[in-house]
């Protein structure tokens, strides 16, 4: 059988890749792609802890489902913001979207 650690390390790897995407990509849409990877990594952990803990306690799955909702909301609003910026400033490069300082 598969030990819990495999899932956790797998999720950690997915999380780190997502983190890299978020930090390194120039395109704002690509940054959001990275965020999706990170959210998925979290969800793997939630599901794994559900399976390896008390199966009758559904907290892990419920949380995972809530994360789905949050991810959907995040994508909807995040992409809307990107599109809004694109329409007003004609760019999706995150570095050029830096009006929000001071």
């Amino acid at each position, binding site marked *: 059988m598969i030990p819990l650690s495999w899932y956790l390390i797998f999720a950690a790897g997915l999380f780190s890749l997502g983190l890299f995407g978020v930090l390194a990509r120039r395109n704002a849409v690509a940054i959001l792609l990275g965020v999706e990877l990170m959210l998925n990594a979290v969800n793997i952990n939630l599901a794994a802890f559900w399976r390896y803990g008390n199966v009758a306690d559904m907290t892990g799955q419920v949380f995972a489902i809530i994360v789905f909702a949050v991810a*959907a909301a995040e994508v909807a609003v995040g992409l809307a913001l990107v599109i809004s910026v694109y329409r007003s400033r004609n760019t999706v490069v995150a570095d050029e979207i830096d009006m929000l300082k001071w």
Partner: protein
Amino acid sequence: MNQWLLVAFFFIVGLIIPVGAIGVAAILGPKKPNPVKQETYECGLETVGDSWVQFKAQYYIFALVFLIFDVETVFLFPWAVRLGQLGLFAVIEGIVFIAILIAGLVYTWRKGMLEWA
């Protein structure tokens, strides 16, 4: 687990058959490419301009609304499964849930976002 292994078999076989069919066709069929043959097909006219046509924002809106609705309806499945056992209280909760969902639809409608214009 076993269940999902069977589903995985279905995925594999479901992919093997079209791959096989297309692969056989690729082997059997002649291959004589030339630039004219490989041009973009537009009923015989010369292609004008970029093939990346301007994307109409309305498509995006529908996808957006769909995304939200999709997630919400997915939430309803566990509710629907247990509806018979849980009684009226659960029904009311579900109705509240659906009502909030419909409020979103009404908002989008009122904002004129469902118009194809």
